[in-house]
């Protein structure tokens, strides 16, 4: 398992580790770029030391901006385009079409939680895929399964911030009420009384506004497990924590798995394992609506529009006709079940009917405990 990390000007090129892969994130191309295009020389020097250099282009790009992006790419030395890390499918397609010698690192970190889709993306890039970067929302057991069956190298975030929000709009300068700062780099911490989480790191730059989780994702304790499952690249992203000094320690940890505690102890930001053990972010869904009034097609008759005590229950007949003598079960919004025999059946002109058709309103005999919005079923 190799370490993938980010280059920073604070690092001495002579001290870079040849076993480590360094991503160069230039400001015109990266969401969280820390280098100017003039710093290309540093990337070329790194390359000369036979160290793997990766150019990151992870911004999302609208059509007009794409033309500007192409102009910026033209300013990059072709030698630095050997390994390109992309997320926007348009940028991917551009490199597939126009840079046949570029190897692609495909970032599938937003969504892409099923094997079929991940495999399809990888197959699309084919032999030119250097590796695929997967989402931290994929739990470990599934990650193992994906790695086992994918036949392409996989990278996973090992230590670093979790990006939770990305907009092209300049939200921090707007909050400051100063649009002249729209393209400026701004930093803030956000908290809301409506959320128990406090201290979301926020950044704004020429590409928009980004929010990160209050805790960084950390799988330092899980490196033996990740190694065993065949993960090829463990990523350390020090750009928010500014802990570039930990790169060597983490690289050593990946060999012997013995420095997790040491590194965690010295790490300034809170850490978590996120959904690495289990992802149950859909278990609350049934509670988001009242499933008691959710229609069950089999034997569905209609729904109650009005209840007039001692007089009638008005229901909209939505399936099949309703007839005198029908036996019904009504389920109230609170989940209570009420059984009822149709002894009286009238239309809205108050005329007695033998049956009332689908699409019409039926007035049936009153029964206590039934409320509007109750669902009606044939027994």
């Amino acid at each position: 398992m190799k370490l993938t990390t980010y280059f920073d000007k604070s690092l001495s090129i002579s001290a870079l580790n040849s076993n480590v892969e360094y991503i160069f994130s230039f400001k015109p191309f990266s969401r969280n770029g820390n280098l100017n295009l003039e710093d290309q020389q540093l990337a070329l020097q790194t390359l000369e030391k036979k160290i793997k250099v990766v150019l990151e282009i992870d911004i999302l790009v609208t059509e007009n901006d794409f033309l500007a992006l192409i102009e910026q790419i033209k300013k990059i030395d072709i030698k630095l385009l050997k390994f390109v890390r992309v997320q926007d499918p348009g940028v991917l397609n551009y490199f597939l079409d126009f840079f046949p010698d570029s190897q692609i690192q495909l970032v599938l970190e937003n969504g892409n939680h099923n094997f079929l889709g991940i495999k399809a993306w990888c197959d699309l890039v084919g032999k030119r895929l250097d590796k695929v970067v997967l989402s931290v929302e994929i739990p470990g057991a599934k990650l193992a399964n994906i790695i086992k069956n994918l036949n392409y190298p996989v990278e996973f975030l090992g230590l670093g911030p979790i990006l939770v929000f990305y907009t092209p709009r300049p939200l921090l300068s707007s909050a400051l009420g100063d649009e002249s700062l729209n393209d400026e780099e701004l930093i803030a911490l956000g908290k809301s009384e409506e959320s128990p989480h406090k201290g979301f790191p926020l950044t704004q730059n020429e590409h928009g506004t980004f929010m990160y989780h209050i805790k960084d994702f950390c799988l330092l304790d899980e490196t033996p497990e990740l190694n065993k499952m065949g993960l090829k690249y463990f990523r350390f992203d020090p750009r928010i924590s500014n802990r570039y000094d930990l790169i060597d320690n983490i690289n050593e940890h990946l060999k012997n798995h013995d420095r997790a505690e040491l590194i965690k102890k010295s790490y300034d930001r809170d850490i978590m394992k996120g959904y690495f053990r289990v992802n149950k972010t859909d278990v609350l869904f049934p509670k988001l609506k009242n499933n008691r009034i959710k229609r069950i097609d089999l034997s569905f008759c209609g729904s109650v529009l009005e209840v007039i005590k001692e007089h009638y229950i008005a229901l909209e007949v939505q399936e099949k006709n309703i007839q005198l003598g029908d036996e019904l079960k009504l389920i109230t919004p609170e989940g209570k079940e009420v059984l009822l025999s149709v002894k009286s059946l009238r239309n809205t002109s108050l005329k007695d009917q033998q049956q009332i058709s689908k699409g019409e309103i039926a007035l049936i005999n009153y029964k206590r405990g039934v409320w509007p919005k109750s669902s009606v079923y044939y027994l």
Partner: protein
Amino acid sequence: MTQKYNIPELLSPAGNLEKLKVAISYGANAVYLGGQDFGLRVASDNFTEAELSEGVSFAHERGAKVFVVLNSFLHDEDLEKLPKFIKLLSELKVDAVIVSDLGVVKTVLKHSKIPIHLSTQASCLNAFAAKLWKKMGVTRIVLGREVSIAEAGRIKKISGLEVELFVHGSMCMAYSGNCTISNFTQGRDSNRGGCAHSCRFEYSLDFKDKSIDSKSYFMSSKDLEGIKVLENYISHNIDSIKIEGRMKSPLYAATTAKVYSEALKHYAKKGHFYSTDMKKWEEELRKISHRDYTEASLIKKAGKDSIFDERESTKEIKYKNIGLIKDVVDQEFLILNVKNSFQNDDELEVLDFSGNTHHIKVEKIYSILGQEITKTNPNTLVKIPFIKGASNLNMVRMCV
């Protein structure tokens, strides 16, 4: 003046069967809806199989299309259940599915011939991306809301794909599909339908280097309104204009479908939007629940003026939804399913399907039993005197 360009399809949200019928009756050419799974609105009623069947029949009988959303970012276990649902959609002859995940695209292609529309959730923003998705079997792109109308026209021209662009409704502040605040703070996957709308919260911002402590709704977007730039959609050959809002009320579905379809019909007839009706259409769109409106990025990149820096509930709504006409009895009475109460002497507005608004002062209200009443209650049925032109499924509203 004759028509210069094709008129785009008007695509409305259908959160349930009633809203589907309302939207199509008020002029939508197509609706999009969700089944019980695989969509992004788990709290919406959505459609059961029988409702889907009825909805598709209702739409097709009136020449309208039905698109079904399968736009969650599905996990493997979700994907296992999908082929059965696709088979059903195929049998029901739905007109397209809306998809954001490549695994879902592959599954749809394997199990059916249903056309695939790429969801805005996939944030397709440029022609290179559109061409890639085309290669993967997609026939239409629902472009990201960050794309301008002119850019959308260019993407269509270069990719040769149909393009669909939002024209009205609530907006994610983030690039769609690129927000996981709910996932990590509320344990609800926003990309599988559990969005907790954390972007609508008020936040305190601590700008350490600027010695400013700011409090605002800085992540909340105003709602999109494209009525004034409809001509741009047409001149750039946008194939479909989309209204957001499956969770919104039937009155919203009715009003938005009515306004935009009237405007498009006006253009089809006259070849322009220069009309005194433009003011009327804009006013109509202010009568439904909404945040302040913005054109967002339709013409130029969205900036400070696209941010809705207010608490959600503080927005005053001048019109309330009174309910839906459920029946017309012997050209004598209208039966109204009351959602919000009204009383004698109130002035109601009945929106018919011909574009007319009937203003009526309430003089008589009867219960279904025929007793005269002076005031109504929510969730009741009442009779009011018949109005010529009014029919079943007409919406009734009231200025408050």
